[in-house]
Protein backbone atom coordinates (compact mmCIF):
# COMPACT_ATOMS: atom_id res chain seq x y z
CA UNK A 1 0.00 0.00 0.00
CA UNK A 2 1.52 3.27 -1.06
CA UNK A 3 -0.21 5.39 1.52
CA UNK A 4 2.93 6.86 3.04
CA UNK A 5 3.14 9.61 0.48
CA UNK A 6 4.60 12.30 2.63
CA UNK A 7 7.86 12.04 4.53
CA UNK A 8 6.72 14.69 6.96
CA UNK A 9 4.98 13.34 10.02
CA UNK A 10 1.46 14.51 10.87
CA UNK A 11 1.84 13.92 14.57
CA UNK A 12 5.03 13.84 16.59
CA UNK A 13 4.97 12.54 20.12
CA UNK A 14 7.96 13.21 22.37
CA UNK A 15 8.33 11.44 25.71
CA UNK A 16 4.72 11.75 26.75
CA UNK A 17 4.30 10.85 30.42
CA UNK A 18 1.21 10.95 32.54
CA UNK A 19 1.12 10.32 36.26
CA UNK A 20 -1.97 9.82 38.36
CA UNK A 21 -0.53 10.94 41.67
CA UNK A 22 2.25 8.45 42.29
CA UNK A 23 0.96 5.92 39.83
CA UNK A 24 2.07 5.85 36.23
CA UNK A 25 -0.56 6.20 33.53
CA UNK A 26 1.86 6.04 30.67
CA UNK A 27 5.51 6.86 30.60
CA UNK A 28 8.00 8.14 28.03
CA UNK A 29 6.03 7.37 24.90
CA UNK A 30 7.49 8.71 21.67
CA UNK A 31 6.49 8.06 18.08
CA UNK A 32 5.77 9.74 14.76
CA UNK A 33 2.56 9.27 12.83
CA UNK A 34 2.58 9.90 9.10
CA UNK A 35 -0.32 10.96 6.89
CA UNK A 36 -2.42 7.97 5.83
CA UNK A 37 -0.93 5.75 8.49
CA UNK A 38 -2.92 3.62 10.92
CA UNK A 39 -1.28 2.99 14.26
CA UNK A 40 -2.70 0.47 16.69
CA UNK A 41 -1.98 0.66 20.40
CA UNK A 42 -2.54 -2.74 21.99
CA UNK A 43 -2.15 -4.11 25.46
CA UNK A 44 -4.20 -5.46 28.32
CA UNK A 45 -6.57 -3.43 30.46
CA UNK A 46 -4.74 -0.92 32.61
CA UNK A 47 -1.68 -0.85 30.39
CA UNK A 48 -2.08 2.89 29.71
CA UNK A 49 -3.54 2.71 26.20
CA UNK A 50 -6.48 4.97 26.87
CA UNK A 51 -4.41 7.37 28.98
CA UNK A 52 -2.07 7.77 26.05
CA UNK A 53 -4.94 8.25 23.61
CA UNK A 54 -6.50 10.89 25.82
CA UNK A 55 -3.17 12.70 26.06
CA UNK A 56 -2.79 12.64 22.30
CA UNK A 57 -6.29 13.94 21.68
CA UNK A 58 -5.89 16.82 24.17
CA UNK A 59 -8.53 15.40 26.45
CA UNK A 60 -6.03 14.87 29.25
CA UNK A 61 -2.93 17.01 29.74
CA UNK A 62 0.26 14.94 30.03
CA UNK A 63 2.49 15.44 33.07
CA UNK A 64 5.55 15.73 30.85
CA UNK A 65 6.43 15.54 27.19
CA UNK A 66 5.27 17.30 24.07
CA UNK A 67 2.90 16.51 21.23
CA UNK A 68 3.20 18.34 17.96
CA UNK A 69 0.69 18.33 15.13
CA UNK A 70 1.04 19.54 11.57
CA UNK A 71 -1.75 22.05 10.97
CA UNK A 72 -3.40 22.40 7.56
CA UNK A 73 -1.09 25.31 6.76
CA UNK A 74 1.89 22.97 7.18
CA UNK A 75 3.21 24.44 10.43
CA UNK A 76 4.05 22.16 13.34
CA UNK A 77 2.23 23.23 16.54
CA UNK A 78 2.49 21.99 20.09
CA UNK A 79 -1.03 20.88 20.95
CA UNK A 80 -0.88 22.06 24.52
CA UNK A 81 0.21 25.53 23.45
CA UNK A 82 -2.79 26.05 21.20
CA UNK A 83 -5.48 28.36 22.50
CA UNK A 84 -8.68 26.70 23.63
CA UNK A 85 -10.47 28.11 20.58
CA UNK A 86 -7.85 26.70 18.19
CA UNK A 87 -7.97 23.35 19.93
CA UNK A 88 -11.74 23.16 19.69
CA UNK A 89 -11.68 24.07 16.04
CA UNK A 90 -9.06 21.40 15.46
CA UNK A 91 -11.14 18.82 17.29
CA UNK A 92 -14.26 19.46 15.26
CA UNK A 93 -12.73 19.91 11.84
CA UNK A 94 -9.36 18.23 11.44
CA UNK A 95 -9.84 15.50 14.01
CA UNK A 96 -12.32 12.84 14.94
CA UNK A 97 -12.76 10.84 18.11
CA UNK A 98 -14.65 7.55 18.06
CA UNK A 99 -15.64 6.45 21.54
CA UNK A 100 -16.03 2.85 22.60
CA UNK A 101 -19.49 3.64 23.92
CA UNK A 102 -21.29 5.36 21.05
CA UNK A 103 -23.58 7.19 23.46
CA UNK A 104 -20.54 9.17 24.66
CA UNK A 105 -19.83 10.44 21.19
CA UNK A 106 -23.38 11.08 20.02
CA UNK A 107 -26.13 13.44 21.00
CA UNK A 108 -28.69 10.88 21.96
CA UNK A 109 -31.66 13.26 22.01
CA UNK A 110 -31.34 14.71 18.54
CA UNK A 111 -31.89 12.94 15.22
CA UNK A 112 -29.24 11.06 13.27
CA UNK A 113 -29.22 13.80 10.64
CA UNK A 114 -28.55 16.49 13.24
CA UNK A 115 -25.82 14.34 14.76
CA UNK A 116 -24.00 14.17 11.46
CA UNK A 117 -24.77 17.81 10.65
CA UNK A 118 -23.59 19.23 13.97
CA UNK A 119 -19.98 19.66 12.93
CA UNK A 120 -21.04 21.30 9.67
CA UNK A 121 -23.18 23.79 11.57
CA UNK A 122 -20.37 24.34 14.08
CA UNK A 123 -18.04 25.45 11.29
CA UNK A 124 -20.63 27.82 9.89
CA UNK A 125 -22.77 25.89 7.41
CA UNK A 126 -26.16 27.62 7.43
CA UNK A 127 -28.03 25.96 4.57
CA UNK A 128 -30.48 23.36 5.84
CA UNK A 129 -30.85 21.62 2.49
CA UNK A 130 -27.12 21.21 2.02
CA UNK A 131 -26.55 20.04 5.58
CA UNK A 132 -29.28 17.47 5.22
CA UNK A 133 -28.01 16.26 1.85
CA UNK A 134 -24.49 15.85 3.26
CA UNK A 135 -25.84 14.02 6.30
CA UNK A 136 -27.85 11.73 4.05
CA UNK A 137 -24.80 11.03 1.92
CA UNK A 138 -22.74 10.14 4.98
CA UNK A 139 -25.43 7.91 6.43
CA UNK A 140 -25.34 6.06 3.11
CA UNK A 141 -21.58 5.66 3.33
CA UNK A 142 -21.85 4.04 6.74
CA UNK A 143 -24.72 1.85 5.54
CA UNK A 144 -27.56 3.48 7.45
CA UNK A 145 -30.81 3.73 5.47
CA UNK A 146 -31.94 7.20 4.42
CA UNK A 147 -35.30 6.76 6.08
CA UNK A 148 -33.62 6.66 9.49
CA UNK A 149 -32.25 10.19 9.12
CA UNK A 150 -34.88 11.73 11.41
CA UNK A 151 -34.73 9.00 14.07
CA UNK A 152 -32.98 9.41 17.40
CA UNK A 153 -29.84 7.30 17.90
CA UNK A 154 -31.65 5.86 20.91
CA UNK A 155 -33.69 3.79 18.50
CA UNK A 156 -30.54 2.48 16.79
CA UNK A 157 -28.80 -0.82 17.47
CA UNK A 158 -25.27 -0.83 18.92
CA UNK A 159 -23.67 -1.38 15.53
CA UNK A 160 -25.71 1.37 13.90
CA UNK A 161 -24.86 3.79 16.68
CA UNK A 162 -21.18 3.08 16.19
CA UNK A 163 -21.48 3.65 12.44
CA UNK A 164 -23.42 6.85 13.06
CA UNK A 165 -20.67 8.02 15.37
CA UNK A 166 -18.12 7.37 12.64
CA UNK A 167 -20.16 9.31 10.08
CA UNK A 168 -20.52 12.20 12.52
CA UNK A 169 -16.75 12.34 12.91
CA UNK A 170 -15.83 11.99 9.26
CA UNK A 171 -18.27 14.53 7.83
CA UNK A 172 -15.76 17.39 8.02
CA UNK A 173 -13.12 15.24 6.31
CA UNK A 174 -10.68 15.12 9.21
CA UNK A 175 -7.07 14.12 8.67
CA UNK A 176 -6.60 12.36 11.99
CA UNK A 177 -9.04 10.13 13.82
CA UNK A 178 -8.63 8.68 17.30
CA UNK A 179 -10.51 5.49 18.04
CA UNK A 180 -10.96 3.96 21.47
CA UNK A 181 -12.00 0.32 21.12
CA UNK A 182 -14.41 1.09 18.25
CA UNK A 183 -15.57 -2.52 18.06
CA UNK A 184 -15.85 -3.12 21.80
CA UNK A 185 -19.20 -4.45 22.94
CA UNK A 186 -20.38 -5.44 19.48
CA UNK A 187 -21.09 -9.01 18.49
CA UNK A 188 -18.67 -10.71 16.15
CA UNK A 189 -20.58 -10.42 12.89
CA UNK A 190 -21.32 -6.75 13.50
CA UNK A 191 -17.67 -6.24 14.39
CA UNK A 192 -16.59 -7.77 11.10
CA UNK A 193 -18.91 -5.50 9.14
CA UNK A 194 -17.74 -2.43 11.04
CA UNK A 195 -14.10 -3.34 10.47
CA UNK A 196 -14.74 -3.74 6.74
CA UNK A 197 -16.39 -0.36 6.68
CA UNK A 198 -13.61 1.30 8.67
CA UNK A 199 -10.94 -0.22 6.47
CA UNK A 200 -12.67 1.07 3.35
CA UNK A 201 -13.23 4.57 4.73
CA UNK A 202 -9.68 4.85 6.02
CA UNK A 203 -8.28 3.84 2.66
CA UNK A 204 -10.69 6.02 0.65
CA UNK A 205 -10.12 9.14 2.70
CA UNK A 206 -6.42 8.57 3.35
CA UNK A 207 -7.03 9.00 7.07
CA UNK A 208 -4.39 8.82 9.74
CA UNK A 209 -5.71 6.81 12.62
CA UNK A 210 -4.59 6.08 16.16
CA UNK A 211 -6.63 3.12 17.31
CA UNK A 212 -6.62 1.70 20.79
CA UNK A 213 -7.71 -1.90 21.09
CA UNK A 214 -7.14 -5.00 23.13
CA UNK A 215 -8.27 -7.08 20.19
CA UNK A 216 -5.25 -8.14 18.16
CA UNK A 217 -7.46 -9.17 15.25
CA UNK A 218 -8.68 -5.58 14.94
CA UNK A 219 -5.10 -4.35 14.98
CA UNK A 220 -4.12 -6.92 12.36
CA UNK A 221 -6.96 -5.93 10.03
CA UNK A 222 -6.76 -2.17 10.31
CA UNK A 223 -3.31 -1.03 11.25
CA UNK A 224 -0.01 -0.62 9.47
CA UNK A 225 2.01 -0.22 12.61
CA UNK A 226 1.49 -1.43 16.13
CA UNK A 227 2.66 -0.41 19.59
CA UNK A 228 2.43 -2.90 22.44
CA UNK A 229 2.00 -1.36 25.89
CA UNK A 230 2.44 -2.85 29.30
CA UNK A 231 2.29 -1.10 32.69
CA UNK A 232 2.44 2.29 31.05
CA UNK A 233 5.45 1.57 28.88
CA UNK A 234 5.74 0.80 25.20
CA UNK A 235 7.54 -2.52 25.17
CA UNK A 236 7.52 -3.27 21.48
CA UNK A 237 6.60 -1.49 18.27
CA UNK A 238 6.94 -2.08 14.57
CA UNK A 239 5.03 -3.10 11.47
CA UNK A 240 1.86 -4.90 12.46
CA UNK A 241 2.51 -8.11 10.58
CA UNK A 242 6.07 -8.25 11.81
CA UNK A 243 5.16 -7.78 15.45
CA UNK A 244 2.22 -10.16 15.38
CA UNK A 245 3.94 -12.87 13.35
CA UNK A 246 7.28 -12.64 15.06
CA UNK A 247 6.95 -11.06 18.50
CA UNK A 248 10.23 -10.43 20.27
CA UNK A 249 9.14 -9.54 23.78
CA UNK A 250 7.93 -12.35 26.03
CA UNK A 251 4.81 -10.35 26.90
CA UNK A 252 3.94 -9.83 23.23
CA UNK A 253 4.50 -13.50 22.61
CA UNK A 254 2.07 -14.24 25.43
CA UNK A 255 -0.48 -11.82 23.99
CA UNK A 256 -0.26 -13.29 20.53
CA UNK A 257 -0.38 -16.86 21.76
CA UNK A 258 -3.38 -16.19 23.93
CA UNK A 259 -5.65 -15.62 20.94
CA UNK A 260 -8.07 -18.48 20.56
CA UNK A 261 -7.69 -20.26 17.26
CA UNK A 262 -11.05 -21.48 16.09
Amino acid at each position, binding site marked *: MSVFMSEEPLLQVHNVTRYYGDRIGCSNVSFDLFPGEVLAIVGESGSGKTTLLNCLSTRLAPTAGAIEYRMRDGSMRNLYQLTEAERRLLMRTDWGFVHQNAADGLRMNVSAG*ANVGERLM*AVGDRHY*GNIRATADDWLGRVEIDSDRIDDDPRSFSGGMRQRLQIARNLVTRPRLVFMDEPTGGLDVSVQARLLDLLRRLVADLGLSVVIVTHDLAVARLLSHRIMVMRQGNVIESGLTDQVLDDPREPYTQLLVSSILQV
Partner: protein
Amino acid sequence: MNDTAEIYDQGEYNFAYLDEQTKRMIRRAILKGIAIPGYQVPFASREMPMPYGWGTGGVQVTASILGKDDCLKMIDQGSDDTTNAVSLRGFFEKTAGIRTTYETSEATVIQTRHRIPEKNLTENQVLVFQVPIPEPLRFLEPRETETRKMHALEDYGLMHVKLYEDIAKNGHIATTYAYPVKVNDRYVMDPSPTPKFDNPKIDQMEALQLYGAGREKRIYAIPPYTKVKSLDFEDYPFEVQKFDKPCGLCGAENVYLDEVILDDKGGRMFVCSDSDYCEERRAEGHAGPMAADPAAIQIGGATVEETI
Protein backbone atom coordinates in the same frame (compact mmCIF):
# COMPACT_ATOMS: atom_id res chain seq x y z
CA MET B 1 -29.54 64.39 55.47
CA ASN B 2 -31.21 63.65 52.18
CA ASP B 3 -34.77 62.50 51.59
CA THR B 4 -33.84 58.89 51.32
CA ALA B 5 -32.16 58.73 54.68
CA GLU B 6 -35.05 60.58 56.27
CA ILE B 7 -37.55 58.03 55.06
CA TYR B 8 -35.24 55.30 56.27
CA ASP B 9 -35.19 56.72 59.79
CA GLN B 10 -38.92 56.58 59.97
CA GLY B 11 -38.88 52.85 59.36
CA GLU B 12 -40.17 53.22 55.82
CA TYR B 13 -38.88 51.46 52.76
CA ASN B 14 -35.81 52.85 51.12
CA PHE B 15 -36.72 54.41 47.77
CA ALA B 16 -37.72 51.56 45.43
CA TYR B 17 -37.26 48.92 48.17
CA LEU B 18 -33.60 47.98 47.59
CA ASP B 19 -30.89 49.61 49.70
CA GLU B 20 -28.50 51.97 47.94
CA GLN B 21 -25.49 49.61 48.05
CA THR B 22 -27.47 46.86 46.36
CA LYS B 23 -28.60 49.30 43.71
CA ARG B 24 -25.00 50.31 43.07
CA MET B 25 -24.03 46.69 42.66
CA ILE B 26 -26.88 46.08 40.22
CA ARG B 27 -26.11 49.28 38.30
CA ARG B 28 -22.54 48.09 37.86
CA ALA B 29 -23.82 44.83 36.40
CA ILE B 30 -26.16 46.78 34.12
CA LEU B 31 -23.33 49.02 32.91
CA LYS B 32 -21.19 46.01 32.18
CA GLY B 33 -24.08 44.41 30.34
CA ILE B 34 -24.52 47.53 28.21
CA ALA B 35 -20.81 47.59 27.46
CA ILE B 36 -20.91 43.98 26.23
CA PRO B 37 -24.26 43.64 24.44
CA GLY B 38 -25.84 40.23 24.95
CA TYR B 39 -23.30 39.03 27.55
CA GLN B 40 -24.82 37.59 30.71
CA VAL B 41 -23.37 39.45 33.69
CA PRO B 42 -23.59 37.59 37.00
CA PHE B 43 -24.90 39.68 39.88
CA ALA B 44 -25.72 39.11 43.53
CA SER B 45 -29.45 38.76 43.16
CA ARG B 46 -31.37 39.59 46.36
CA GLU B 47 -34.32 37.93 47.94
CA MET B 48 -37.35 39.94 46.94
CA PRO B 49 -40.70 39.98 48.71
CA MET B 50 -42.23 37.90 45.95
CA PRO B 51 -41.60 34.39 44.66
CA TYR B 52 -39.08 33.53 41.97
CA GLY B 53 -40.89 33.47 38.67
CA TRP B 54 -42.79 36.63 39.45
CA GLY B 55 -40.13 38.79 37.93
CA THR B 56 -37.63 39.20 40.76
CA GLY B 57 -34.87 39.90 38.23
CA GLY B 58 -36.84 42.55 36.39
CA VAL B 59 -37.95 44.12 39.68
CA GLN B 60 -34.37 44.46 40.91
CA VAL B 61 -33.28 46.04 37.62
CA THR B 62 -36.23 48.42 37.67
CA ALA B 63 -35.61 49.31 41.32
CA SER B 64 -31.99 50.16 40.52
CA ILE B 65 -32.72 52.47 37.61
CA LEU B 66 -35.84 54.24 38.89
CA GLY B 67 -35.60 57.90 39.77
CA LYS B 68 -38.18 60.06 41.50
CA ASP B 69 -39.29 61.64 38.20
CA ASP B 70 -39.75 58.37 36.36
CA CYS B 71 -43.08 57.15 35.17
CA LEU B 72 -43.46 53.38 35.28
CA LYS B 73 -45.53 51.05 33.13
CA MET B 74 -45.90 47.35 33.97
CA ILE B 75 -46.82 44.79 31.37
CA ASP B 76 -47.88 41.21 31.95
CA GLN B 77 -48.31 39.28 28.68
CA GLY B 78 -49.05 42.58 26.93
CA SER B 79 -51.66 43.62 29.42
CA ASP B 80 -51.51 46.29 32.12
CA ASP B 81 -54.21 44.91 34.34
CA THR B 82 -53.44 41.25 34.95
CA THR B 83 -52.15 39.89 38.25
CA ASN B 84 -48.42 40.20 37.74
CA ALA B 85 -48.62 43.73 36.35
CA VAL B 86 -51.02 44.92 39.04
CA SER B 87 -48.94 43.45 41.88
CA LEU B 88 -45.62 44.81 40.67
CA ARG B 89 -47.07 48.21 39.85
CA GLY B 90 -48.50 48.31 43.36
CA PHE B 91 -45.13 47.28 44.75
CA PHE B 92 -43.37 50.24 43.19
CA GLU B 93 -46.19 52.65 43.97
CA LYS B 94 -45.81 51.68 47.60
CA THR B 95 -42.04 51.50 47.87
CA ALA B 96 -41.02 54.31 45.49
CA GLY B 97 -44.13 56.47 45.35
CA ILE B 98 -43.53 57.20 41.69
CA ARG B 99 -46.04 57.91 38.97
CA THR B 100 -47.33 54.88 37.06
CA THR B 101 -49.19 54.70 33.80
CA TYR B 102 -50.87 52.39 31.32
CA GLU B 103 -49.78 54.50 28.40
CA THR B 104 -46.72 53.28 26.53
CA SER B 105 -45.71 56.72 25.27
CA GLU B 106 -45.97 58.32 28.71
CA ALA B 107 -43.74 55.81 30.51
CA THR B 108 -40.02 56.32 30.95
CA VAL B 109 -39.42 52.84 32.37
CA ILE B 110 -41.42 49.87 31.15
CA GLN B 111 -41.05 46.55 32.89
CA THR B 112 -42.44 43.75 30.81
CA ARG B 113 -43.16 40.11 31.09
CA HIS B 114 -42.83 38.62 27.64
CA ARG B 115 -44.13 41.31 25.29
CA ILE B 116 -42.73 44.40 23.64
CA PRO B 117 -45.33 47.16 23.18
CA GLU B 118 -46.71 47.54 19.66
CA LYS B 119 -45.98 51.26 19.71
CA ASN B 120 -42.40 52.22 18.82
CA LEU B 121 -40.30 53.03 21.85
CA THR B 122 -38.01 56.06 21.99
CA GLU B 123 -34.53 56.91 23.21
CA ASN B 124 -36.04 58.30 26.40
CA GLN B 125 -37.44 54.97 27.46
CA VAL B 126 -35.96 51.87 29.08
CA LEU B 127 -37.52 48.46 28.57
CA VAL B 128 -36.89 45.99 31.41
CA PHE B 129 -37.53 42.30 30.75
CA GLN B 130 -38.24 39.61 33.33
CA VAL B 131 -36.21 36.55 32.39
CA PRO B 132 -36.80 33.04 33.73
CA ILE B 133 -33.88 31.24 32.04
CA PRO B 134 -31.24 33.54 30.59
CA GLU B 135 -29.07 30.82 29.04
CA PRO B 136 -30.11 30.11 25.44
CA LEU B 137 -27.95 26.98 25.38
CA ARG B 138 -29.34 25.55 28.62
CA PHE B 139 -31.56 22.84 27.15
CA LEU B 140 -28.83 21.77 24.76
CA GLU B 141 -25.95 21.76 27.23
CA PRO B 142 -26.79 21.40 30.92
CA ARG B 143 -23.33 22.29 32.29
CA GLU B 144 -22.92 25.97 33.17
CA THR B 145 -19.12 25.69 32.93
CA GLU B 146 -19.48 24.41 29.38
CA THR B 147 -22.07 26.98 28.23
CA ARG B 148 -19.87 29.81 29.51
CA LYS B 149 -16.98 28.41 27.56
CA MET B 150 -19.16 28.10 24.49
CA HIS B 151 -20.10 31.77 24.77
CA ALA B 152 -16.48 32.76 25.31
CA LEU B 153 -15.35 30.84 22.24
CA GLU B 154 -18.39 31.74 20.13
CA ASP B 155 -19.04 28.02 19.80
CA TYR B 156 -22.67 28.24 18.75
CA GLY B 157 -23.09 25.32 16.35
CA LEU B 158 -25.33 23.62 18.88
CA MET B 159 -27.95 26.35 18.60
CA HIS B 160 -28.39 25.52 14.95
CA VAL B 161 -28.63 21.83 15.79
CA LYS B 162 -31.80 22.74 17.68
CA LEU B 163 -33.19 24.68 14.72
CA TYR B 164 -32.23 21.79 12.41
CA GLU B 165 -34.19 19.43 14.63
CA ASP B 166 -37.18 21.74 14.46
CA ILE B 167 -37.20 21.67 10.68
CA ALA B 168 -36.50 17.93 10.50
CA LYS B 169 -39.38 17.17 12.87
CA ASN B 170 -41.91 19.84 11.94
CA GLY B 171 -41.01 21.04 8.47
CA HIS B 172 -40.34 24.56 9.72
CA ILE B 173 -38.63 26.26 12.65
CA ALA B 174 -41.22 25.55 15.32
CA THR B 175 -39.70 27.69 18.06
CA THR B 176 -42.26 30.42 18.63
CA TYR B 177 -41.01 32.11 21.77
CA ALA B 178 -37.61 32.60 23.42
CA TYR B 179 -36.31 32.54 19.87
CA PRO B 180 -32.50 32.81 20.01
CA VAL B 181 -30.85 35.92 18.59
CA LYS B 182 -27.29 36.98 17.91
CA VAL B 183 -26.49 40.36 19.38
CA ASN B 184 -24.04 42.68 17.66
CA ASP B 185 -22.61 39.72 15.68
CA ARG B 186 -21.19 38.24 18.85
CA TYR B 187 -23.28 36.79 21.67
CA VAL B 188 -26.20 34.43 21.22
CA MET B 189 -28.92 35.60 23.58
CA ASP B 190 -32.31 34.47 24.78
CA PRO B 191 -34.69 37.43 24.44
CA SER B 192 -36.71 36.03 27.38
CA PRO B 193 -39.88 34.15 26.44
CA THR B 194 -41.28 36.93 24.25
CA PRO B 195 -43.08 35.61 21.20
CA LYS B 196 -40.78 35.60 18.19
CA PHE B 197 -43.24 38.09 16.72
CA ASP B 198 -41.42 40.70 18.82
CA ASN B 199 -37.90 39.73 17.72
CA PRO B 200 -37.73 42.22 14.83
CA LYS B 201 -38.52 45.02 17.31
CA ILE B 202 -35.40 44.18 19.34
CA ASP B 203 -33.23 44.91 16.33
CA GLN B 204 -32.04 48.54 16.20
CA MET B 205 -34.50 49.49 18.94
CA GLU B 206 -34.25 53.11 20.02
CA ALA B 207 -34.87 52.32 23.68
CA LEU B 208 -32.38 50.67 26.01
CA GLN B 209 -33.27 47.04 26.80
CA LEU B 210 -32.32 45.48 30.12
CA TYR B 211 -32.89 41.84 30.97
CA GLY B 212 -32.94 40.64 34.57
CA ALA B 213 -33.04 37.02 35.76
CA GLY B 214 -33.43 36.93 39.55
CA ARG B 215 -33.27 33.23 40.27
CA GLU B 216 -30.45 32.65 37.79
CA LYS B 217 -28.65 35.81 38.97
CA ARG B 218 -27.88 37.23 35.55
CA ILE B 219 -28.34 40.62 33.92
CA TYR B 220 -27.84 41.37 30.26
CA ALA B 221 -28.57 44.31 28.04
CA ILE B 222 -28.98 45.57 24.51
CA PRO B 223 -28.01 49.22 24.09
CA PRO B 224 -30.07 51.41 21.74
CA TYR B 225 -29.49 50.93 18.01
CA THR B 226 -27.83 47.54 18.29
CA LYS B 227 -27.94 44.93 15.56
CA VAL B 228 -29.89 41.89 16.73
CA LYS B 229 -30.35 39.02 14.32
CA SER B 230 -32.68 36.08 14.83
CA LEU B 231 -30.87 32.83 14.05
CA ASP B 232 -32.05 30.92 10.99
CA PHE B 233 -30.98 28.93 7.95
CA GLU B 234 -30.38 30.40 4.51
CA ASP B 235 -33.15 28.27 3.04
CA TYR B 236 -35.42 28.56 6.09
CA PRO B 237 -35.26 32.27 6.94
CA PHE B 238 -36.63 33.67 10.18
CA GLU B 239 -40.33 34.46 10.00
CA VAL B 240 -42.77 35.92 12.50
CA GLN B 241 -46.22 34.58 13.25
CA LYS B 242 -48.99 35.79 10.98
CA PHE B 243 -52.61 36.20 11.97
CA ASP B 244 -55.30 35.83 9.37
CA LYS B 245 -57.77 38.09 11.18
CA PRO B 246 -57.44 41.61 12.57
CA CYS B 247 -58.00 42.35 16.27
CA GLY B 248 -61.65 41.68 17.13
CA LEU B 249 -61.98 44.87 19.13
CA CYS B 250 -59.90 47.52 17.39
CA GLY B 251 -59.38 45.97 13.95
CA ALA B 252 -55.58 46.35 14.12
CA GLU B 253 -53.54 44.25 11.72
CA ASN B 254 -49.92 43.11 11.98
CA VAL B 255 -50.05 43.06 15.76
CA TYR B 256 -49.73 40.16 18.15
CA LEU B 257 -53.13 38.71 19.04
CA ASP B 258 -54.34 36.71 22.02
CA GLU B 259 -57.02 34.10 21.63
CA VAL B 260 -59.95 34.56 23.99
CA ILE B 261 -62.36 31.68 24.48
CA LEU B 262 -65.90 33.03 24.70
CA ASP B 263 -68.02 29.99 25.47
CA ASP B 264 -67.87 26.21 25.50
CA LYS B 265 -69.32 25.93 22.01
CA GLY B 266 -66.14 26.87 20.16
CA GLY B 267 -66.75 30.62 20.27
CA ARG B 268 -63.53 32.60 20.31
CA MET B 269 -62.11 35.94 19.41
CA PHE B 270 -58.65 37.30 18.76
CA VAL B 271 -57.72 40.56 20.42
CA CYS B 272 -54.58 42.66 20.72
CA SER B 273 -52.24 41.28 23.34
CA ASP B 274 -51.08 44.86 23.96
CA SER B 275 -54.10 46.17 25.87
CA ASP B 276 -52.96 49.80 25.93
CA TYR B 277 -52.47 49.83 22.16
CA CYS B 278 -55.92 48.34 21.66
CA GLU B 279 -57.63 50.84 23.95
CA GLU B 280 -55.90 53.75 22.34
CA ARG B 281 -57.02 52.64 18.89
CA ARG B 282 -60.59 52.22 20.08
CA ALA B 283 -60.49 55.66 21.60
CA GLU B 284 -59.41 56.96 18.19
CA GLY B 285 -62.54 55.39 16.73
CA HIS B 286 -61.17 52.17 15.22
CA ALA B 287 -63.51 49.23 15.64
CA GLY B 288 -62.98 45.57 14.94
CA PRO B 289 -65.60 43.07 13.74
CA MET B 290 -66.46 41.99 17.29
CA ALA B 291 -66.39 45.38 19.01
CA ALA B 292 -69.50 46.45 20.87
CA ASP B 293 -71.56 49.41 19.71
CA PRO B 294 -69.64 52.67 20.41
CA ALA B 295 -72.62 53.97 22.39
CA ALA B 296 -72.52 50.93 24.66
CA ILE B 297 -68.82 51.49 25.35
CA GLN B 298 -69.50 55.05 26.39
CA ILE B 299 -72.25 54.01 28.76
CA GLY B 300 -70.02 51.27 30.13
CA GLY B 301 -67.16 53.73 30.63
CA ALA B 302 -69.41 56.16 32.48
CA THR B 303 -70.64 53.46 34.84
CA VAL B 304 -67.12 52.48 35.76
CA GLU B 305 -66.23 56.05 36.60
CA GLU B 306 -69.29 56.45 38.79
CA THR B 307 -68.41 53.33 40.76
CA ILE B 308 -64.94 54.68 41.44
